[in-house]
């Protein structure tokens, strides 16, 4: 019996004991509505919980409050215009959303970005991951009533946003990736600045490690709560840090052959056997550190050369279908692009990680206590634009 199973069993046993207690106390049922606007949901998600005493017996997320119709809109945009839209899916790590779409378009056109562009893409990808996850780590404190971490996160995230702005011109939605390369080269002095900023972010990780992960309250509210075993995680299609926290050693950055330069750097895929809320948050913390490592290593290895291959002025993508997915800050994000040879895609199917992250909510919330609802939701980590699209 693995550690996970044992913990799982003890948790189930304690829940069963509580259920018996509820019967003895004749607790009354009640429906608790969280959201659609609630400080603890990252945006406008609504969750309906049916309670028995203080236990959740049934929970269901109501998505769709942020449905903006991306898949339909991409059909009336041209290929270069689509990046403007898909930027805004996962708004915390915007650059990471562009990359899989551009890669899919490049795959259909059978071109590849020059090596310099690939390395810069990877760096920006990882920077947006840091920007994303650092806010997650800060926000984690707020969910538990600690305000300080979020101020730290906002402060240190600015360094990364400044870098992204310096390179791309946009703090939030860079729209910098082009089919066949990048819009521009890096500005002068950017590499040195990045080194400094990444050091600051590493310090931020250490602070959060002490402040939050070393905190007793945090540990007791996170450890052993919301356990998701590996088989359930795969059944529900969890990906990214949520899957790795359940012990699934799977990272698309490492396991997949895509034209991004992760193999140039030396880094580690972290997994955790526990599968509880704590593990999920811890994995994200370690990932931020790994991202910092990847960025610092890649900064030394940017090859010389152009950042754009030769592409026709008016981009027409040949007929065909392509599926590309990458390991985005939230998990696997993929685009299934169908082209009929026109200026724009015929159909784009977007697979985003958050949708799966919340589809496990009814399972994960069954039997937990009301205060744990928020921490479990926080640790599953979703972004509303990424759920509803």
């Amino acid at each position: 019996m693995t550690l996970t199973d044992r913990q799982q069993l003890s948790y189930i046993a304690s829940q069963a004991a509580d259920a018996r207690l509820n019967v003895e106390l004749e607790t009354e049922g009640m429906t608790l509505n969280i959201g659609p606007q609630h400080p603890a949901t990252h945006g406008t998600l609504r969750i309906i919980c049916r309670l028995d005493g203080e236990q959740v017996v049934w929970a269901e997320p109501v998505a769709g409050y942020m449905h903006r119709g991306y898949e339909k809109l991409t059909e009336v945009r041209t290929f270069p215009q689509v990046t403007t839209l898909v930027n805004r899916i996962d708004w915390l790590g915007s650059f990471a959303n562009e990359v899989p779409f551009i890669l899919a378009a490049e795959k259909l056109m059978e071109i590849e970005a020059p090596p310099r562009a690939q390395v810069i893409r990877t760096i920006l990808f990882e920077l947006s991951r840091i920007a994303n996850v650092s806010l997650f780590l800060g926000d984690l404190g707020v969910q538990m009533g600690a305000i300080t971490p979020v101020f730290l996160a906002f402060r240190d995230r600015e360094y990364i946003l400044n870098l992204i702005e310096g390179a791309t011109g946009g703090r939030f939605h860079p729209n910098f990736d082009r089919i066949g390369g990048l819009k521009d080269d890096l500005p002068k002095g950017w590499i040195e600045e990045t080194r400094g900023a990444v050091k600051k972010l590493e310090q931020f990780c250490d602070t959060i490690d002490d402040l939050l992960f070393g905190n007793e309250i945090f540990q007791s509210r996170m450890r052993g709560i919301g356990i998701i075993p590996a088989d359930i995680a795969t059944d529900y299609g969890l990906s990214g840090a949520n899957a790795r926290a359940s012990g699934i050693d799977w990272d698309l950055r490492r396991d997949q052959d895509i034209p991004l330069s992760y193999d140039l750097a030396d880094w580690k895929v972290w997994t955790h056997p526990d599968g509880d809320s704590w593990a999920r948050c811890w994995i994200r913390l370690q990932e931020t550190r790994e991202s910092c490592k990847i960025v610092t290593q890649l900064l030394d290895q940017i090859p010389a050369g152009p950042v754009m291959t030769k592409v026709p002025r008016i981009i027409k993508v040949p007929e065909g279908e392509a599926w590309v997915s990458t390991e985005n800050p939230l998990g696997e994000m993929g685009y299934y692009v169908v082209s009929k040879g026109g200026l724009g895609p015929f159909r784009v199917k977007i697979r985003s990680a958050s949708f799966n992250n919340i589809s496990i909510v009814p399972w994960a919330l069954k039997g937990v206590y009301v205060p744990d609802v928020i921490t479990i939701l926080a640790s599953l980590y979703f972004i509303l634009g990424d759920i509803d699209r």
Partner: protein
Amino acid sequence: MGLVDKSRLPAPLTKLFNMSRSYSLWVYQWGLACCAIEMGAAFGSPRYDVMRLGVIPLPASPRQADFVCVSGTVTDKMAPAVKRLWEQMPEPKYAISMGSCANCGGPYWDSYSVTKGVDQIIPIDVYVPGCPPRPEALLEGVVLLQQRIKNEDMAAKWRGDEFTTLQRTRAMEAGEVDRDGELINVPTAPTLETAQAVDSVRPEPIVVGGGPIE
């Protein structure tokens, strides 16, 4: 303060009231999409620090807020909730619309599920254009709102705003409805003329930067 709408306050007193109102604004953050993060950066981060402007960003509920900052995409599914939030806020109340989405639909101008502009639902005082606007732009919007509050004729604001809420309060005072809003005597329904009269009281919205609201 119940006298404000019935009589005219002396000018120095109005000035004093307006000044104190403009520097103790409690803002309800109605963060809906990407712009919410920039709003969070403006209102919650040490770099921008909105409290130095006299804006307090953490009311517990819309019922304690002076103005609402609607930031992000309002979808058709969300629109009723936005409307309801606005109705829950006490008078006098103001609204800032942040970001192209809230202003006019933004990148989703042709989407089937997005409300093209939150001003279709609630009256907006300040538009902050951008996608997303920088936190500095939002702060400028807040400053412009404060200027508007400082120069306001309180009596007109109290009288003219938000016909339904005020009508209900009046009706309650006049004994036409009970405290739960149940009608005791059915008042005459608002006619088109009264609605237009209310609209004419409402001042023109401000646009940060002065350009078009996109």
